[in-house]
């Protein structure tokens, strides 16, 4: 499923894709895999980069000559500490304005893939309400943004914020490290386990867990046989059943007659049909209680104990 999400064949290749990584396994390799796949489809990709330099991002991805990749440098001086020129404006209005500049004037089709690296940086500097407005862009008809792909470091935020952002996503890929007990005879060393949850427009939610590796050219390898590779726990059902009544100084076994006698014995308080019938059936001339209330008795059918405060 992860491969289809990267290829954009699921859900029309639109919506908001959230990659949640953790300290043990970073998600930037997967993010670059998304970018590479979009570039190969000749889609316009706007990358707003806040955490690494342009050289690091471009390394292995592109030689910088591709016009489809538009790099917005939020790494060098986002807060205007160095130069006194116009600072990099990472407010939502500015991001939208920068994307609109590359609007396809001939057609009204949405054509922009917006990549945020990382969403965590934005969440620390802009109120979450503004960020959520930005994340709604693919749903707006007049917007040029077809798809948003964002990387978020889940340990850096409260559960509430992580939950709110996850709720807005059409597809969530959560990365977790490979468990340590997994056997190590792999052709290609696996990187992490990605749990992909996809919410379709019909309301259906699909979930799949895959073990993957990103290669140097940012292509994806899925390790399908993760479950088979887990070390099998050896089964112990080959040992013979041990007879507990053997080799004792006293006899625990029953002969045939003793077994029959045991089965015939009726236990106390276990009533046979005949006995039940004789007890339950009312005998003729049995006790009968006749009650005639005195004049002083105020017998109320609804309140026989006369203790209701009605």
């Amino acid at each position: 499923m992860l491969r289809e999400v990267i290829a954009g064949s699921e859900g029309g290749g639109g919506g908001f894709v959230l990659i949640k990584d953790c300290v043990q396994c970073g998600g930037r390799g997967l993010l670059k895999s998304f970018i590479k796949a979009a570039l190969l489809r000749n889609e316009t990709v706007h990358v707003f980069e806040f955490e690494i330099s342009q050289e690091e991002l471009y390394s292995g991805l592109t030689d910088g000559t591709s016009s489809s990749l538009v790099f917005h440098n939020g790494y060098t001086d986002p807060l205007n500490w160095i130069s006194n020129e116009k600072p990099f404006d990472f407010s939502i209005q500015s991001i939208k304005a920068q994307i609109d500049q590359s609007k396809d004037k001939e057609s009204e089709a949405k054509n922009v893939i917006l990549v945020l690296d990382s969403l965590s940086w934005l969440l620390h500097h802009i109120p979450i309400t503004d960020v959520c407005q930005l994340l709604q862009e693919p749903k707006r008809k007049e917007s040029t943004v077809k798809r948003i792909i964002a990387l978020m470091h889940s340990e850096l935020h409260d559960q509430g914020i992580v939950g709110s952002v996850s709720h807005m996503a059409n597809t969530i890929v959560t990365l977790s490290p490979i468990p340590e007990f997994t056997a190590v005879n792999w052709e290609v060393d696996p990187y992490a386990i990605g749990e992909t949850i996809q919410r379709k427009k019909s309301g259906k939610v699909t979930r799949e867990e895959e073990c993957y590796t990103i290669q140097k050219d940012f292509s994806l390898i899925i390790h399908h046989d993760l479950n088979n590779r887990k070390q099998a726990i050896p089964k112990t059902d080959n040992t013979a059943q041990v007879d507990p009544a053997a080799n004792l100084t006293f006899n625990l076994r029953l002969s045939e007659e003793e077994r029959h006698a045991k089965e015939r014995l009726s236990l106390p308080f276990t009533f046979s049909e005949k006995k039940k019938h004789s007890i339950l059936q009312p005998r003729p001339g049995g006790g009968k209680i006749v009650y005639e209330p005195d004049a002083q008795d105020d017998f109320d059918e609804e309140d026989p104990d006369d203790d209701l405060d009605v």
Partner: protein
Amino acid sequence: MFAELNSILNWSPDKFEKGQCILLSESKTDGSFLIHHFLSFFLKAQCKVCFLGLVQSFSHYSTVAQKLGINLLQAREKGQLVFFEGLCNSLDMLLPESDASDAEPQPLGFLRWPSTDLRNLFDFVNSSLSQSENDMSRWASPVLIIDDLSVLLSLEVSPTAVLDFVHYCRMAVCSKQQGNMVTMVHNEDDLGDEDCDLVFHALTHQSSLILQVHGLNTGYCRDVHGQIQLRWKDKFQLKRDHTHVFQYKVHDKGVSFFAPGTSSAVL
């Protein structure tokens, strides 16, 4: 510098990785021996070092460095070492002697105006490490060492401001000048300090080499002072992290590292 740690890291004063962001963390023990190691290592490697000493005085570091064969006073006079003494400067900030000092931006300006960011401190670092033509011929790559960031959190600086400061330092030192940066943070898991956890996790994402020092779970021990975990992260996040765990003992003039459970007192 400690020869055993050099061989574990596969570094030498002539050959070490550049453009690295190194994170040191200590938990339930004192990890300052790593700071002394990296300070003496980079001075021996002829790098220009900017040291933000927020925890101890200059004379403390100088005394320890002398045991490791480095003269900090001489390095400072030569211009190789720029030492920022946080303790003295903070006193000057809080009890200014004259009003003239208000005119210039002070590196520890946030002490008097708590709502501001650490821009002044970054300006100090940037100006100390920006290499002039003269510097580039004399010294190898620039190095920034911070001891330690948790002090800033204790001084009511917001975690976002600390992370912005580290971001700019990393950009100016590691990305622009291919220098190295070493930062120390406290990381006490069970204290529930959200700010410290946030800074530690964010720096873990950004760093390429992480050295975590833990005290032993069983408490203080005379022969084993603690455990150190080294984690090398792949720059492009395509390969899994490579980790190594050692136990260590700090001596007067060095530190010995050994595999867990193989202390000389035990064997």
